[in-house]
């Protein structure tokens, strides 16, 4: 096999962008990047508003949150504006408590399950879109966009109705399909069934983003590559693994990264569905932090958990972040 793939998987996936407009070859682009006469301060000034906003609106709460995590902060302290430092006590309490590591494990598994399903089906549906005729494709696109656009809270409510124990349409269908024990099934009654509904909801809402973008990305793959591949005698599977996949790889990486973040942070879907129940068995890290901190009015402990949550997310995404750091180095 000697299918040419170079020039398609340049750093970080700008390949996809080239599908647009009469883009010049990258070499020319790079050569023309002359910094002549540009004041050195300009980029910093342009970045200033965004950086200031980040610093004030994100950095400040983060620091504040960090400070709270070292305080004994309960209703009394909050109401009287007292600051009672208690060192690492909150962290100690959380890390040695019976729940935290269980919740971490659950959150990681939850994220993994969702992201695998989203990426797998998102990719398959994206590839399917590429194979469909024009009319059928438009129809499916409309369906995907509708699911994508549903506001999370409304979507969660709708899923509660679909899976309602009494008169819910899902139980009715399962019953009619011969699964009679499901006629009055309480989906919110166990950990597994509650998670099933939540995962279905999240996957349903997230697939469109992946599928639509993946489809659009495939449209930018130069036809010549496939021609060359089939000249070389490649079958459908081979041209997929040697042309399509390498071309889409950067896209898949970055999308997976986004989905990991979005799923891990998913709050309203999990919380509104069953408030982390039954018996707190569907609490993921963000829910756990919220329930302990805000619900249980143990604000210092909640802050400590949220800080640990950020750390866990950083660890999970560190691989991708390292990759980006490297790529950006290459790109300019």
């Amino acid at each position: 096999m000697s299918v040419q793939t170079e020039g398609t998987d340049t750093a970080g996936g700008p390949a996809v962008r080239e599908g647009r407009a009469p883009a010049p070859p990258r070499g020319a682009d790079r050569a023309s990047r002359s910094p002549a006469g540009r004041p050195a301060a300009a980029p910093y000034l342009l970045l200033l508003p965004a950086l200031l906003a980040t610093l004030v609106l994100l950095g400040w709460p983060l620091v504040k949150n960090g400070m709270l995590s070292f305080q004994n902060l309960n209703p009394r302290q909050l109401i009287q504006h007292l600051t009672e430092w208690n060192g690492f006590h909150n962290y100690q309490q959380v890390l040695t408590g019976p729940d935290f590591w269980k919740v971490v494990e659950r959150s990681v598994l939850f994220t993994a399950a969702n992201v695998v399903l989203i990426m797998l089906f998102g990719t398959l549906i994206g590839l399917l879109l590429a194979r469909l005729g024009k009319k059928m494709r438009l129809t499916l696109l409309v369906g995907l966009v509708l699911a994508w656009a549903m506001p999370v809270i409304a979507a969660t409510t709708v899923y509660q109705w679909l899976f309602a124990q009494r008169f819910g349409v899902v139980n009715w269908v399962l019953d009619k399909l011969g699964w009679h024990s499901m006629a009055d099934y309480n989906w919110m009654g166990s950990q597994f069934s509650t998670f099933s509904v939540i995962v279905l909801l999240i996957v349903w809402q997230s697939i469109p983003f992946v599928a639509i973008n993946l489809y659009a990305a495939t449209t930018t793959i130069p036809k010549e590559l496939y021609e060359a591949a089939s000249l070389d005698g490649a079958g459908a599977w081979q041209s997929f693994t040697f042309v399509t996949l390498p071309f889409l790889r950067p896209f898949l990486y970055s999308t997976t990264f986004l989905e990991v973040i979005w799923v891990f942070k998913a709050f309203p879907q999990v919380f509104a569905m069953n408030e982390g129940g039954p018996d707190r068995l569907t609490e993921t890290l963000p829910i756990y932090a919220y329930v302990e901190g805000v619900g249980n009015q143990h604000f210092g402990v909640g802050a400590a958990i949220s800080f640990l949550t950020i750390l866990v997310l950083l660890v999970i995404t560190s691989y991708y972040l390292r990759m980006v750091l490297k790529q950006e180095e290459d790109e300019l």
Partner: protein
Amino acid sequence: MKRSLFGRIWPNATAVVLFVGFVFPVYWMFATAFKPTGDIITENPVWFPTHFTFGHFDKAVHADHFWTLVANSVTVTLCSVLLSLVIALFAAFALARMRFKGRRGFIVTFMLAQMAPWEVMIIAIYMIVRDSDMLDSLVPLTVFYAMMVLPLTVLTLRGYIAAVPKELEESAMVDGCTRLQAFRKVIFPLLAPGLMATSLFGFITAWNEFPLVLILNKDIEKQTLPLWLSQFQTAFGDDWGATMAASSLFALPILILFIFLQRKAVSGLTDGAVKG
């Protein structure tokens, strides 16, 4: 290459099944909202409403201060999207078109910022806003929502700007435009679809946000629609007609916006967002 009959049929068949799967929850929401209660609470679902009623909608919009909440939601959403777009545009331009020290660090900063779990920081945010004496106001909501979407907006717009051929800009400058004019007259029009696509993410985020407004704004006149929806759901949890009517009302603006911007969103997000 000729495809077999089976090869031609299965993609379409799968597409139909998928279409139904994706659309059904949305359809069921609207269908339930329009059905009289007798058709909702039945042993056998009524798949297609035959009798229509606006009773559920009537119940939904007659909640206290409904229109105030609508106005608040629209104001906050529009302002925060606009604010984040403007700020992001500057940053994205620098990141896409300029070479300078620390560029990589800035990009990673925005990537990290994108990960912020806002819901778990609300007590910290609450204390900051409280101590700044800004509770019960739409301003903190607006700026925090803008911040929630800012990182992704920057990263996405950066992709769009990079996709605009540099030559266009340069030839404009050769023709005597200043850099700013070149930006306004050449890049900006090409960016418009990208801006619209990017704004969708902001619209959804701001329109949906719930935990922050719950804790910041106790005054009902300064609250937003997600609170109404959730309270409505608590009060009428069993009344699926009313709940679905409320959900429909809540979802409608975003659905319309998406359908309206869909073409642009699709082509746009490909160009931009993929470069997370």
